[in-house]
């Protein structure tokens, strides 16, 4: 038996003398005796020893294919409805929500979205229904739909909401401009029903409003970030138990906006406020970093920012720049995101 010459660059193998005699490194001759190969005449011309190597090569090529097939072009239409309300008829006014919506419109337009912008008195329920009906006639399955809202949000009808597992017992709503009050509240389930009409398979909802986490309808994922963030997160075993329980009790009839319907990026948790600020921000804090994610959020450097990357960037930035400053006060908050296996491209990285 010949001894295998050891490569010079692998000194650690010198301590493993038995490797020198390994016959498998010489074409795997032992496989020639495999009985099951004898019944396969078409393999006669093929050295049996080549099979494992062929499998290894195929597998390696498949991995390379996965890793390299990243190039694509945005060859589908993208539609966005952007609403921002600062001057409410029925609630306290906000300072930066209209400028949030305008900045998001500018960002999306620069990335070739078809954008419909409505602010203040234009941003009513009837207007939203009409805008969605309009997109319904234009968009196709392959296109992407994005709904952005900046304004008031809150819980409604405590104890009566059809919340998914893990949620509280209340529905959450965003406050549209409508006056009088009835009709101004658009609940999570109502928004889910509205966007369900849009034929696009790729849908993203971005909500910069208080309690917006209540719009997320995860049924299989345990969120490690509590709905009222205080700088802590749930522990490993707590999440494991919850995830196991969710898997076992999955019914597939989620309330709110399920991940299969749209990916929701919420500025805040289900039981906390979202904040806006001057002092260099001049936006909702979440929206400020969401806008910034277009230029800094391309986590894997593939040239595109996905919904999850935009969320991750905004969340990390809020932790680093806002929560650290507000530590110990009620101003601390954390964005949340939908679960589900899919992620969608939002913008080209700038």
């Amino acid at each position: 038996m010949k001894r295998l010459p050891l490569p010079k660059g692998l000194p650690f193998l010198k301590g493993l003398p038995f490797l020198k005699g390994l016959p498998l490194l010489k074409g795997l001759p032992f496989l020639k005796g495999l009985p099951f190969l004898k019944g396969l005449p078409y393999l006669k011309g093929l050295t049996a020893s080549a099979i494992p190597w062929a499998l290894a090569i195929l597998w390696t090529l498949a991995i390379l294919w996965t890793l390299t097939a990243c190039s694509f072009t945005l060859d589908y239409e993208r539609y966005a409805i952007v609403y921002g309300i600062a001057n409410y008829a029925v609630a306290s006014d906000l300072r930066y929500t209209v400028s949030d919506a305008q900045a998001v419109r500018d960002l999306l337009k620069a990335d070739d979205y078809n954008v419909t912008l409505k602010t203040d008195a234009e941003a009513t329920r009837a207007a939203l229904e009409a805008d969605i009906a309009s997109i319904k006639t234009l968009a196709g399955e392959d296109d992407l739909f994005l709904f952005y809202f900046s304004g008031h949000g809150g819980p409604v009808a405590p104890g009566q909401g059809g919340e998914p597992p893990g949620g509280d017992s209340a529905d959450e709503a965003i406050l549209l401009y409508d006056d009088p009050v009835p009709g101004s509240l658009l609940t999570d389930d109502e928004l889910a029903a509205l966007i369900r009409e849009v034929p696009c398979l790729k849908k993203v909802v971005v909500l910069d409003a208080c309690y917006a986490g209540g719009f997320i309808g995860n049924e299989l994922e345990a969120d490690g970030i509590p709905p009222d963030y205080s700088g802590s997160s749930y522990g490993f075993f707590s999440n494991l138990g919850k995830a196991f329980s969710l898997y076992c009790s999955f019914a597939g009839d989620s309330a709110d906006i399920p991940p299969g319907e749209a990916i929701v990026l919420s500025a805040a948790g289900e039981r906390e406020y979202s904040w806006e600020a001057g002092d260099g921000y001049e936006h909702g804090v979440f929206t400020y970093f969401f806008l910034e994610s277009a230029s800094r959020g391309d986590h894997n450097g593939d040239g595109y920012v996905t919904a999850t990357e935009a969320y991750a960037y905004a969340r990390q930035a809020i932790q680093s720049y806002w929560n650290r400053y507000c530590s110990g006060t009620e101003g601390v908050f954390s964005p949340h995101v939908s679960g589900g296996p899919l992620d969608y491209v939002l913008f080209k990285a700038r």
Partner: protein
Amino acid sequence: MAKSQRIIPFFLLFVTVSALSWSPRWGPALGAGAGGELLLSKEERFPLKPQAGGWLGLQFEVPVLSAGSVSFLLALHRTLASSLQGGFAYRGFSGLDSRLQLDWRWPLRALGRQLRLDLGGGLGAAARFDKYELTELSFFYPGLVLEPFLELRLARLQRHGLRASLPLTLYFRRDLETSASIGISLLWKIHPWAGVPEAAGKASR
């Protein structure tokens, strides 16, 4: 009915103890390994895409009967996000992978003085607890593993073995229509409580 329910655990205990007492000379084994996998994912409304992944793990194996063994593998794994083709990707995730598996071996041949080679197959259950990358969202799902393998025992290092396998795994994810993987793995095994192995005995001078 109640009587039979009481008998079942005793019967299982008897089978387990008997199996262990008839176990072969190698004894329990500890292993460390690594592998790569190609995961195929398909959501109901979106096309299938491949995702590359890999794992690093530790295994504990107990022999049963003459040629079988039950193994438990605990591994850390990571699966990369798929390509962005079509404007969407299947998210990447990472987490814990645990597998309980029943293996069976058929000796192929003793290769001279140096080696003994077994062909084997394993059937087992997998459970994964993962977190989507860039999020704090954890999720759980089980799977079914079918693992053909070749196991090599080295005479010069009597207590050591090397196992190469091509595990095929079908995952039962509730949010995906298809989730299945094919992998390649390599596991280094040590039998700390083993006697003198057969291959080494035949290789005596």
